[in-house]
């Protein structure tokens, strides 16, 4: 049988150690309940609570995830709160009502916490499941937000971790480290009203079918950093290792309504982080900006990875490896007011119905494809190299187009389809320009380029194809006027087919074949 301990308001000793355990960690029993809300840790430097068994609950009400567990009725005395739950179906509800506790550490899993830094075990037999932890630090006006270090770890499967940090009138000023090792875990991190510069939130998941949800609300006017993935965990002893890269994490989403902040997502091969594999996807959503967001994808040799970005008003960078597929935009028009950098190594980039009002830079190496469909383009640069690759905007750049530059380099067969469908509402205001280059230093691979001009603005095109392989060029100007200067040079044949000026207006076409 488990035990139920009801804390009463009292002044604790200099150190509190509560053991609410079954017979042994290896054979947990059930039903240990630690109930708040009246724990007063004033004057206590260290509070440590260990629960082992099944169905342990630490909360104010005794219910799973219920209400709050109160820490420290006075300001600033408690230096460390450590709660460890070992076993399955444990739950924790924690609120730091009045605490400026230095450290809050929560461990859910089979391993014992070791030292102040804690660690995650790698022994699969010790991974326990179905734990839940809800941690609130300064989430409402009744809570203090002064914790400097929150460390929440869960090891096992189907665990749920939810943190609510700060509020509009009171920022959480500490550091969050949230680690999950196992499969089917859910991490939900909400940051509100962050105004303190340089704050770092580290969220890491390794295993499979994990879900991550990041939400930052409010204008982070002085800057905030969210690091998620496996690379920049603050505690080196707790970093997931390469062996933890099992992938298949499920839907991960990031909803960002703040501004002036930096989000770094790292998905690397050397460190597990979050691997978005198979048909799973990772979503990023921002409502206000400017923000800086950077995501590094894992180098896992999987295809079909997706990163979906919606309503993005910030500077953004995505780096993909190992065949990652990056999809931007969707059914709703995506707007990118800041600068965008997207890189895929051997993977694909798809942009759908997206407006780019800053510089946008797309690149692939070692093959890969880039597909662009719809949207405004202010200053776009596309660079592709290595194995066979392709760029296609077959369905057009349907908004205004200011500048578009596409460069393909590689010895294998490359293809490029560019469709200028610029249709701004200020005809004549924008003058779309396209600089399109296909080169190959070696090899006999050819280049194919097919161009369409369907816009309502006067456009200019500079086209260069060179290299040892055969080259083909097609250009169709259906509406608007187009000035195109094209050169084809190289050892092998070069041909231009399908050069059409239908109902052309004030156009010129200059082609040099050498």
């Amino acid at each position: 049988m488990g035990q139920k301990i009801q804390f009463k308001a009292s002044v604790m000793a200099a150190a509190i150690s509560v053991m609410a355990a079954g017979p042994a960690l290896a054979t947990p029993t059930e039903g240990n309940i630690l109930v708040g809300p009246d724990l007063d840790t004033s004057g206590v430097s260290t509070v440590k609570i260990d629960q082992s068994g099944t169905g342990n609950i630490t909360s104010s009400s005794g219910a799973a995830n219920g209400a709050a567990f109160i820490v420290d009725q006075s300001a600033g005395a408690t230096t460390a709160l450590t709660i460890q739950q070992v076993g399955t179906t444990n739950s924790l509800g924690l609120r730091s009502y009045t605490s400026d506790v230095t450290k809050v550490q929560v461990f859910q899993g089979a391993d014992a916490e070791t030292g102040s830094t804690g660690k995650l075990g790698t022994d699969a037999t010790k991974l326990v499941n179905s734990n839940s932890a809800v941690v609130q630090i300064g989430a409402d006006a009744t809570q203090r937000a002064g914790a400097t270090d929150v460390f929440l770890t869960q090891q096992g499967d189907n665990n749920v971790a939810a943190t609510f940090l700060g509020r509009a009138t009171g920022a959480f000023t500490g550091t969050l480290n949230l680690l999950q090792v196992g499969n089917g875990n859910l991490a939900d991190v909400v940051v509100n009203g962050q105004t303190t510069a340089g704050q770092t939130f580290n969220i890491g998941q390794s295993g499979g079918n994990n879900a991550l949800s990041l939400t930052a609300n409010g204008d982070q006017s002085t800057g905030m950093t969210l690091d998620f993935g496996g690379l920049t965990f603050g505690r080196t002893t707790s970093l997931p290792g390469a062996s933890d890269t099992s992938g298949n994490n499920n839907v991960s989403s990031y909803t960002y309504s703040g501004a002036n902040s930096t989000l770094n997502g790292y998905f690397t091969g050397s460190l597990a982080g979050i691997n978005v594999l198979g048909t799973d996807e990772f979503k990023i959503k921002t409502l206000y900006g400017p923000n800086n967001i950077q995501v590094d994808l894992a180098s896992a040799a999987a295809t079909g990875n997706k990163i979906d970005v919606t309503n993005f008003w910030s500077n953004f960078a995505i780096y993909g490896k190992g065949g990652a597929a990056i999809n931007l935009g969707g059914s709703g028009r995506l707007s990118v007011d800041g600068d965008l950098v997207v890189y895929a190594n051997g993977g694909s980039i798809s942009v759908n119905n997206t407006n780019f009002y800053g510089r946008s830079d797309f690149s692939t190496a070692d093959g890969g494809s880039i597909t662009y469909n719809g949207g405004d383009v202010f200053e776009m640069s596309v660079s592709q190299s290595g194995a066979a690759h392709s760029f296609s905007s077959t369905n057009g750049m349907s908004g205004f187009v200011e500048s578009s530059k596409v460069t393909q380099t590689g010895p294998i067969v490359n293809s490029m389809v560019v469709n200028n469908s610029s249709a701004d509402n200020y005809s004549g205001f924008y003058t779309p320009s396209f600089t399109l280059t296909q080169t190959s230093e070696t090899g006999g691979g050819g280049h194919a380029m097919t161009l369409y001009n369907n816009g309502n603005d006067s456009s200019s095109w500079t086209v260069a194809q060179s290299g040892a392989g055969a080259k083909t060029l097609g250009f169709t100007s259906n509406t608007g006027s187009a000035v195109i200067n094209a050169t084809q040079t190289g050892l092998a044949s070069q041909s231009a087919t399908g050069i059409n000026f239908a109902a052309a207006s004030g156009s010129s076409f200059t082609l040099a074949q050498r």
Partner: protein
Amino acid sequence: MNFSPSSRLAPSALAAAALSAASLVWAQSTLDHLVVQAPSAPVTVQITQEGAGKLGASVEPITLVSASSAPISLTVQQIGAFTVASQIKAYTAGATANTITLKQETADATPGAVNDVWAKLLLGTQAAPAASQHVTLLQIGDKAQATIESEGDNLAATIIQHGNSSGVSSLNIASNGASNTYGSAGAPITLGALSTLAISSAGDNNSYAISLAGDSTAGITNAGSFNTYNIATQLAGDSLALAISGSGNAFTFDFPTTGTSQYKAVAWGSAATPASVTSGNFVAQCGGSTCWVTDTSSNGYTAANLAAAANASVTPR
């Protein structure tokens, strides 16, 4: 934006080496399909092909179609190789004041070098005649072949072929429109040595100014009226065959009178024994080194009479 990923694309050098090598070996250049259709404002097309070039195909020639007053300008320069023929076909219909400039030359741009250049211009059809076209054709090299078929009026053509005795060039002009100008006194149609010129003119008020090189053959079939021919020969041995019908046509010949390249004879038709140029209603006159023949049969003369009159030989003074 100061992102600093660990794995960024290294800038790839452009294919400078390939470009350099390309200058050593000629590549095959083709432009198979070019259509400019009904522009609402002027359209300019410039094509340069170096190497074995090919522009257009017989089944799908380069096509310029202007249904409005907006002119189309097509300029093509082909610097060809020695073994692969270049081919140009252009087609215009219904346009006003389109400009077509075709320049074909050998790889080293040396007149008379061995080359095979071939150009065919289809200027309008009966259903969609071309009008006011400005055509310039320059072929430098032997074995050049050019064909111009014109349906339309007010064409102005400048045609120059350079060749020498190592090859035979030919120029065929078939014009059914009116008021077309093929060459002018100041810029005549110029053919190289051993060239063959064939003109078939069925329209009226056309003018031809032709300068033949040595050992060239010219054949003119005229079915229209009030056409003007100004023909100059440069070397002995040129032959000229005329088949004339219609009325009011005028011929002016400019023959060399000095040196060893004096003009020898004009085969006026195919008759073994040419009739006098004064027979029928053709009048040949000479002044200085220039002789000219005037068709005075402005009314009432049959084609047979004209054909008989065409069997003439003209010898300079």
